[in-house]
Every structure is written in structure tokens, then in C-alpha cells.
């Protein structure tokens, strides 16, 4: 007995099969492994199953063969399981590929890898990954050359899938009222659209098309839905992660701002205290000499307050990118001499010496005032944090087309931790000689200005008590 379906599947004719030995038709039917199975079925009487693959016309076809005992002979029932086997194979391929998705750390990378899985792993010919954003569908990654932008309220199967947030499998697009016959899609006849959901909302859509109607199946739908689920959860966890990072950053910024405000307020109140107090005393003072002394103190503190408010303004402008520099060509020696002259009274008071080593005929392109400000700040710090009678070295050299300036002192030195905080506004320097009141915005502003000149600024120190050296570079240098 033999049925027609089996004959069709095996590509055989009935008259060529009946009354012939099975082994003549299918030599594989008596191959060693199989014979053992038959013998066992005959001996025990229990049925067994076998899987068998043939290639009629080059197409891979899988059969499940049920072997059972009939009287003293054997009966075989074969069933075409090609669909199940292919699905299982594709599922394995999918699982193997989804592992690579886990290493992706941004949306674009996930989409690109998904595209690869669909095209290379699952061998779909026409794949579109579409982004759903602000009520519009946009091409994200595609095998077709055309790009589009359509509203989700518009026609098309993709828009429908987006609206319903549900997969759409259309076996024959010519019968679907929503199908748009695009210039490029005229030949495509079966279409599968699977949405990728994040927190219940459609974020992406995977669109697969095939030239033949009924060639995309429920198995394809299951596979792509599985993949869409993976991508969805991957994108969701990325979103959560980036939200967490953003929240942390915002919190940090808030804390920094509040600390900045607190320190700035304290700094402003200090000169204000002296001004208010000595003015109060001055009002009731009749002695001209004493009065003069009080007013001198008030004046000095007004200057200090002015400098501090200027610093605060500079710091804010630097942070908001609103500080402009006006670079001009200036002679390095001229600039350095001016700063050293300004500094002399401060050095004299502390009996400190300065040794200057600066090359001649170097012209730099810098904002003159700002350059002097940086240099003055570094030298003033060197003096302030060094013992009386000590020496400060100021040197400049040109290397690799850049000017490098260094200021070395014999002062209190810096720990590695201090160096890392030094160029931030109002740093907490953990050094008993330095109160946090005397460390303000100076270095933070210096860093900002140096960076506006496309240079770098940094500090080095062998450790606390062993002096420190501050460096900065300027990139625009002319050598005569």
C-alpha cells in the first residue's frame, strides 16, 4: 500500500514503486543504522521513529518515519516535517545571534545588529527597520534604496501595525486594502510587520517582504516576534540605564551648585564684614588718623570684593561658554616683564626672589590681559604658599611648536588628591596651611582661559612640603 502524497513528496510514480523491493527504490532505507531499528521493532514489537532527509530536485525535505510491526512484517508511516525542522534550525540560528545583541550599548548598534541577524542569519531578502517617532514612521535601516517619512495615521500595513501595536502577517498583499504599491515594491507579494515595544509603546517596526505570496509563514512571524521581544527588552534596559546616569549627573550638578553658592556666599561675606564694621566705626570716629586707617581697610576690602565678583562672573561665563578672548601677537618677554614688575611688591614683602628664564624673540598669539592674569595668578600662588625668603622659578620654552611655561616654588607642595581637585572652583584642599577660604576660583579660571587658547594646564609636586610646579601651554607661537 502506498499513498499519493508520499509519492509526490518523494518525487516517485506509483507503478514504479508497487511490488518492488524498498531497498531498490531507496537504498538508504536499508543502511546499517536503520536495519538495527527494524530488527529491534520486529523483536520487541514496539514502534520507533526515525528522521530522514532527502533532496528531490535539490530542495531539502525532511521526513519523520514511524516504524511499527504488522504481523511478521513492518509498516512505515512517513510525514513531511520540513517546516518544523526548518523552524527549529532558524530558531537555533536566532538564539545564537541574539547573544551578540547583548553587547550592544546604544540604539543604533542594536538596530544594526538586528538588521544583520535578519539578513545574514535568517536570510530574509528585503528587510526594513523603521523608527516610530512623533507620530511618524521613518526609515532607520533598510535594504531598499528608497527612504520615506509617513504619518502613522496614513495608509500601509506598517502604519497599521504601528497603530494596533500588533504584528501583521499579510500572505497576499494584493488582497489587503491598506497595501500601498510603492515604486520599488511592485513585485513584493507577502509582507510581515512586527512592532518592537518599549514600555508598551511602539518604538521600532521590523518590516519583511517577500516576492512570492504565501512565502512568509506563521513560523516567520513567531521568529521575528521573538527577536523583537529581545530588542525591546534590550532597548528598555538601555533606556533605564541612561535615565539612571542622567539622574545621577543632575544630582551631582545640583550638589556642586549648592556647594559653589555656599562657598561663594561665604567668600562675599568676609570682605563685607570688614567693610560694614569699619564703616560703622568710621562714622563715630573723630580722630583723623584713625579714621584714615579705617577707610583704608574699607577700601582694601572693596577691592577684594570687586576682584571676587569679577572672578565669579568669569567663572560663570567660562561655564556657559560666554567668555570671549581677543588674541593678538605679543612679545613673550614684554608680557612676562610686565607681570614680574607687578609682582615685585608682593615678593619684596615676603623677602622672596624670582628667577626668570624666558627665550628671546618669541611672539605668541594670546589675549594679553588674560595671559598676564594666568601668569600673575600662578606666581602669586607660588609666593603665597611658600616660606619667606624662598625662591620662585619662572621659565618658558618652545617645544613641538608650543610654548610651555612653568612656575616652580619651594612651598607647601601638593598631594596627588589635591592635584586632582586643584583646578575646580573652590576646591577643598586638604592641607593645614591652606584654609578653604584662601583657595578660590583663581586656578579654575586659569584653566578655562588656557583651554580657550587651546592649551593645557597642570600641576606636579613630589608631595606635601616639597614644593610644586605649575605648567601651562600656548599653541600659537611664532619664532623669529
Amino acid at each position, binding site marked *: 500500500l502506498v499513498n499519493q502524497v508520499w509519492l509526490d513528496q518523494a518525487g516517485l510514480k506509483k507503478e514504479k514503486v508497487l511490488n518492488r523491493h524498498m531497498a531498490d527504490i531507496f537504498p538508504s532505507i536499508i543502511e546499517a543504522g536503520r536495519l538495527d531499528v527494524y530488527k529491534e521493532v520486529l523483536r520487541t514489537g514496539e514502534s520507533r521513529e526515525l528522521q530522514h532527509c532527502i533532496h528531490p530536485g535539490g530542495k531539502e525535505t525532511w521526513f519523520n518515519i514511524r516504524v511499527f510491526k504488522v504481523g511478521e512484517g513492518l509498516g512505515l508511516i512517513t510525514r513531511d516535517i520540513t517546516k518544523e525542522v526548518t523552524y527549529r534550525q532558524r530558531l537555533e540560528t536566532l538564539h545564537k545571534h541574539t547573544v551578540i545583541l547583548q553587547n550592544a550599548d546604544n540604539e543604533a548598534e542594536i538596530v544594526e545588529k538586528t538588521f544583520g541577524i535578519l539578513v545574514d542569519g535568517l536570510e530574509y531578502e528585503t528587510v526594513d527597520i523603521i523608527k516610530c517617532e512623533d507620530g511618524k514612521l521613518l526609515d532607520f535601516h533598510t535594504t531598499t534604496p528608497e527612504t520615506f517619512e509617513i504619518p502613522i495615521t496614513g495608509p500601509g500595513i506598517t502604519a497599521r501595525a504601528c497603530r494596533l501595536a500588533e504584528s501583521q502577517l499579510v500572505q497576499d498583499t494584493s488582497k489587503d486594502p491598506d497595501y500601498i504599491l510603492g515604486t520599488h515594491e511592485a513585485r513584493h507579494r507577502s509582507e510581515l510587520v512586527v512592532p518592537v515595544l518599549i514600555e508598551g509603546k511602539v518604538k521600532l517596526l521590523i518590516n519583511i517582504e517577500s516576492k512570492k505570496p504565501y512565502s512568509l509563514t506563521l513560523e516567520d512571524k513567531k521568529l521575528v516576534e521573538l527577536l523583537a521581544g529581545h530588542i525591546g527588552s534590550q532597548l528598555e534596559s538601555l533606556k533605564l540605564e541612561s535615565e539612571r546616569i542622567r539622574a545621577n549627573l543632575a544630582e551631582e550638578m545640583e550638589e556642586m551648585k549648592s556647594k559653589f553658592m*555656599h562657598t561663594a556666599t*561665604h567668600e562675599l561675606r568676609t570682605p563685607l564684614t*570688614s567693610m560694614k564694621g*569699619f564703616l560703622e566705626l568710621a562714622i563715630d570716629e573723630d580722630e583723623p588718623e584713625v579714621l584714615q586707617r579705617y577707610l583704608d581697610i574699607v577700601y582694601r576690602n572693596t577691592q577684594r570684593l570687586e576682584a571676587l565678583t569679577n572672578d565669579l562672573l568669569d567663572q560663570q561665563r567660562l561655564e556657559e561658554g560666554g567668555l570671549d578672548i581677543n588674541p593678538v601677537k605679543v612679545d613673550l618677554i614684554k608680557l612676562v616683564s610686565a607681570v614680574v614688575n607687578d609682582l615685585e611688591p608682593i615678593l619684596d614683602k615676603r623677602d622672596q626672589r624670582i628667577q626668570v628664564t624666558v627665550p628671546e624673540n618669541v611672539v605668541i598669539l594670546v589675549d594679553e590681559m588674560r595671559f598676564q592674569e594666568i601668569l600673575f595668578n600662578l606666581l602669586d600662588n607660588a609666593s603665597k604658599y611658600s616660606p619667606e625668603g624662598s625662591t620662585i622659578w619662572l621659565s618658558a620654552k618652545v617645544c613641538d611648536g608650543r610654548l610651555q611655561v612653568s612656575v616652580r616654588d619651594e612651598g607647601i607642595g601638593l598631594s596627588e588628591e589635591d592635584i586632582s581637585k586643584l583646578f575646580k572652583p573652590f576646591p577643598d584642599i586638604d592641607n593645614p596651611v591652606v584654609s578653604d577660604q584662601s583657595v578660590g576660583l583663581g586656578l579654575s579660571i586659569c584653566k578655562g582661559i588656557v583651554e580657550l587658547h587651546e592649551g593645557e594646564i597642570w600641576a606636579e609636586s613630589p608631595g606635601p612640603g616639597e614644593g610644586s610646579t605649575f605648567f601651562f601651554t600656548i599653541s600659537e607661537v611664532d619664532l623669529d
Partner: protein
Amino acid sequence: MSVILVVDDEPDVLLLVKTQLESEGFQVYTAESGREALEFLDKNKVDLLILDVVIPGMSGLDVLRKIRSGEKSGLPVVVFTALGREVDMMLKPENEADAYLRKPYTKEELVETVRGLLE
């Protein structure tokens, strides 16, 4: 005559407090750091201490804590603050000072606070 010690790292503020209180008949000594202040307190009889929160080395808080846990735990202490978190820190029970003065202050506020504590 009551003896007052003022601790602040600002020479101008030290001079100010000294001038203001001396004109009211107090005897005023000054210190620029916490260590200096504690040494002075060890060797001298002081009736009242005025302490800035922000001083070099040892903070004003550390000085206050040391005094409160030492022999002179009953010494009246006035703390200079500059608003903000310092106030929160200072208001913790273990840090409690006898009075707080916010900078910038008026001479009247200073003198009234000091007199109030010395009576």
C-alpha cells in the same frame, strides 16, 4: 574686666572685633588658628570665646568640640557663621554654641550678644 579671645583667619576681622569690643571696655586677645586658640586657652583665663567656623587647619567646629569635652566645657562660645550648611552643622546638639552671629554683623549685635553671655 572680662577677657575675650577672638579666633578668625581674617586679620581685618580680628582688628574689627578687637576695636569694637575694646571700645566697650573688654580686654581682647586674638588668634588666627584653632591650634593657637587652644594653646592660649590652656595658659590664660578667658571669659568668652568668639570663633569663626572657617579657620585654617583645625575647623571652628573641631575647636568647639575640644572645648566642650575638656576642662573648660562651660566657657561661653559665640560662633561666626556665614549662613547655609554651616548653620545646619552647628545646630547639631553636640556642636551647640551659646550664640551665633551671622557675618556681616553690626556692632550693636556683637556687643549685646557678648554682654548677654557674660552677665
